[in-house]
């Protein structure tokens, strides 16, 4: 391998020049003008470029190093109260005009299927640029530096006796987005994300038994400094020891336990039970055919108790390092921060310009998102985070007072019903708590509850020093299916008398 080698064409080819930017803006103007001429009352266009670099390793070898680039435009039009959308990888004036004609034709053909006029909440006209915060552009870091990182990570985990397999991946994403609307907004944005993850496996060949310990969901809106600053090697060593211990651990005894949930698991409980249930499009039935609806009704804001009085949850597209953090959403609405649950009461929804008026709100919270230039933008989850306690509450403080409990860390399997009531979450690592002290690891444990009961049983939340940001890079929603990257910040929290299952089958 050649030390410190950048692949030069990468930077040269895919960094847009001022001429590229001008050409892109011209294509947008052509599409918007054509849509207006054909009778669109509103139109917006996203012309986006996505660069990805992906490296994967298993044990002591690199399995894949690849890069991809995708560039194209997606145009959305409103004609006679119906939406139409057309997208193409050909970013040039002729294709933009054709896209406008196709989008308008689709909207017109579907006019017979409309039953109400779509009204968009007012939005400011914005001409701006925004770039996510990062110190080191991952695409300028030599590939061999990255392969060395993965190989060392795997070696560290494999050095733990009993570890059989390690797989690791790192993905870097660079989104360069341009938005233009018929209302005059023109916004260029750039987001850089870094996604490291790995899995350790211990297999006992004699007995045929095996266990895995995943370390995923740590993606953030940051640059390569995340790889350099975070103690990944210590995590790899820990994951090695934990998977070996897990293989030898005894199965959990099912029953009711007081549980303390670490941010590495609680983020997912927040995502599934709070993030999805407070999407207004779900409550209105717009996702009924796939992701489902919500146990919350559109009229529930300010009326329904969501959890105990210490529970405060915010929607926040401004959160530093958050995967759903942005300058402006995909219809040009400035990033917002607002309470979804305040003092245990459900107080507000996630909204877009189309959704906000349906609950009497004049402004969108800025949740419109398309995962690709070829995708129809729709309501997607912002970062939804649990606020820490005002004073410092440590993990030990949360353990104290628990006679028989479990401490749940990391991601196991997760499942929740289509109205976001009944959920079952497994942890990557689960340990017993006995008389306030952390004890032995147990395996095959999953906690199961009902969203309002679970949050009502929350009687302890960690302080500011225990707050961590986790996130999922592959949240699915919509038809055709789209993927969203979203973060959830939280401290650890304690929940009383939660049902715990043993999910292990007979071997």
């Amino acid at each position, binding site marked *: 391998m050649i030390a410190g080698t950048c*692949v*030069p*064409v*990468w930077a040269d*080819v895919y960094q847009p020049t001022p001429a590229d930017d001008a050409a892109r803006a011209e294509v947008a103007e052509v599409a918007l003008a054509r849509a207006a001429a054909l009778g669109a009352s509103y139109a917006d266009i996203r012309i986006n470029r996505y660069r990805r670099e992906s490296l994967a390793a298993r044990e002591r*070898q690199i399995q*894949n190093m*690849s*890069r*991809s680039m995708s*560039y*194209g435009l*997606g145009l959305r039009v409103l004609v006679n109260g*119906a*939406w139409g*959308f*057309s*997208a*193409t990888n050909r970013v040039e004036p002729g294709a933009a005009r054709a896209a406008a004609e*196709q989008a308008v034709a*689709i909207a017109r*053909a579907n006019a*017979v*299927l409309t*039953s*109400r006029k779509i009204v968009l909440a007012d939005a400011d006209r914005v001409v701006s640029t925004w770039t996510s915060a990062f110190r080191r552009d991952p695409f300028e870091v*030599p590939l*061999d530096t990255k*392969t060395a990182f993965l190989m060392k990570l795997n070696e560290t985990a494999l050095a733990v006796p009993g570890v059989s*397999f390690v797989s690791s991946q790192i993905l870097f994403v660079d989104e360069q987005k341009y938005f233009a609307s018929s209302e005059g907004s023109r916004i260029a944005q750039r987001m850089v994300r870094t996604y490291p993850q790995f899995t350790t*496996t211990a*297999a006992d*060949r004699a007995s*045929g038994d*095996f266990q*895995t310990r995943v370390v995923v969901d740590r993606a953030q809106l940051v640059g390569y400094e995340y790889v350099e600053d975070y103690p990944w090697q210590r995590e790899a060593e820990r994951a090695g020891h934990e998977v070996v211990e897990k293989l030898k651990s005894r199965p959990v005894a099912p029953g009711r336990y007081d549980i303390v949930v670490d941010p590495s698991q609680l983020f997912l409980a927040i995502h599934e039970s709070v993030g999805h249930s407070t999407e207004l499009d779900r409550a*209105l*039935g*717009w*996702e*009924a055919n796939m992701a489902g*609806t919500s*146990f919350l009704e559109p009229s529930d804001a300010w009326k329904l108790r969501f959890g105990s009085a210490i529970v405060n949850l915010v929607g926040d597209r401004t959160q530093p390092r958050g995967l759903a953090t942005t300058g402006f959403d995909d219809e040009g609405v400035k990033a917002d921060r607002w309470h979804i649950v305040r003092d245990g009461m459900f107080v507000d929804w996630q909204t877009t310009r189309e959704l906000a008026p349906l609950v009497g709100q004049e402004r969108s919270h800025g949740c419109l998102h398309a995962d690709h230039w*070829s995708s*129809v933008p*729709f309501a997607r989850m912002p970062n939804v985070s649990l606020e820490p306690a005002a004073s410092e509450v440590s993990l030990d403080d949360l353990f104290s007072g628990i006679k028989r409990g479990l401490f749940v860390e990391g991601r196991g399997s997760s*499942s*929740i*019903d289509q*109205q*976001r*009531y*009944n959920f079952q979450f497994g942890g990557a690592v689960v340990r017993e708590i006995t008389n306030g002290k952390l004890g032995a690891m147990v395996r095959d444990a*999953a906690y*199961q509850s009902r969203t309002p009961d679970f949050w009502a049983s929350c009687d302890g939340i960690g302080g500011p020093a225990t707050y961590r940001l986790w996130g999922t890079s592959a949240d699915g929603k919509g*038809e*055709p299916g789209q993927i969203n990257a979203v973060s959830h910040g939280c401290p650890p929290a304690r929940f009383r008398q939660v049902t715990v*299952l043993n*999910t292990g*089958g007979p071997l």
Partner: protein
Amino acid sequence: MFSRDAALTICETVLSHAKAAGAEDAAVSVQSSLESHARMAANRITTSGRAEDVDITATVWMGRRRGSATGNDSAAAALKQLADEAVQIARVSPVHREYVPTLGALEYQEAGGFASATADVDLDLRAAGLEAVLAACRTAKVTGAAFHTARASASAAATAHGNRRYFRSSEAGFSLTARSEDGTGSGYFAGDHFDLARLDSRHIAEQAVGKAVRSRQPKPIEPGVFPVVLEPQAVADLIGFLASSFDARTADEGRSAFSAKGGKTRLGEKLFNERINLYSDPMHPDLPAVPATGEGIPASRLSLIKSGVLENLEYSRFWAQEHKREPTPGPVNYIMESSQPPTAVDDMIEGMERGLLISRFWYVRLVDPRTIGLTGLTRDGLWWVEKGRISHPVRNLRFNQSVLAMLAPWNVEAIGAPQRLSPFMVPALKLAAFAFTSMSDAI
């Protein structure tokens, strides 16, 4: 979409650029696609659109070092950049120990799963069909949410060793969720076909609306282990976890449901009910598939489970080479059927003393790979069966159930006729025991 000539010309161009840049081996794939869709909810259209894209991937090796680059621009300059970039990545890559030389010229069967109607959606015809669905919803006083999709693609691939292939495929689907106005009933039904003209949205709507009406006012039951009849959709919701468990390497490495003690696999064991057969066949008339695996091996019929016996595991080209055998010619789809004449769902119910009739499952996740243990919930139609007839709708339930136990020799009582739910053809199943662990309030 690209014609055969256009797609293979792009492949040849990228191959020649890669060779000129120093690649010793190379594989290029080109795909062009067109997708059209319409979504409805709350008995009206919500979003509708179309998208066209191309995907060109160059993977190259030099001195067994591998590099890969993907782009979506077929302009001449972009093709050269793509090849050059793959080569430059390969130059700085470590040696890839799992390198297998690319395929040479091979014969492929003619692909059957393409219909031009699917590639060219008639917008007015689609709107008229959806209007009929909405009318059916309004008449039955249910609220409909639906998804209509049609996608067509053309894929070509070429290697430095002379392999050339080109296939077209298409897929159209329609699904409807109908919810009763009182919010206590919900029904879902879905269908798909490679030919949009053969997609029966009227039948799908009738089924979903009927389920919504019949599932109103469900009664709660205590969770427990019950006999069940799974409709084909419910089987399709689980079977993917079995389908993804056939990898030979994972089994050989001792980390799969098909790993055995002492470093062996469970090949040849009668793990399943003796009437169960599971196979892949690209030429299946109702579920034709692209006649090549992802690695380009010509696909042909491959039996995975025969008369309840685990007959084959899936060997990649690398793992086959390690084990001095041929890679498997699939799977490219999954067809489950009985060795005996199928039993109709009505007959399954008639023969049931007490148990549950299940329409579909939702949010199914793997909780234990050792047994293919799954959790998930029932959704959109669950009924209690008593003394051979459907008694009443019941509240949804969460299950925790192993697929190996579900299909075990002693647990399968009856098997229906397989229905297409791409990429599966699966039958209804009557099972002696299925384990539910909690109740859900969700409708």
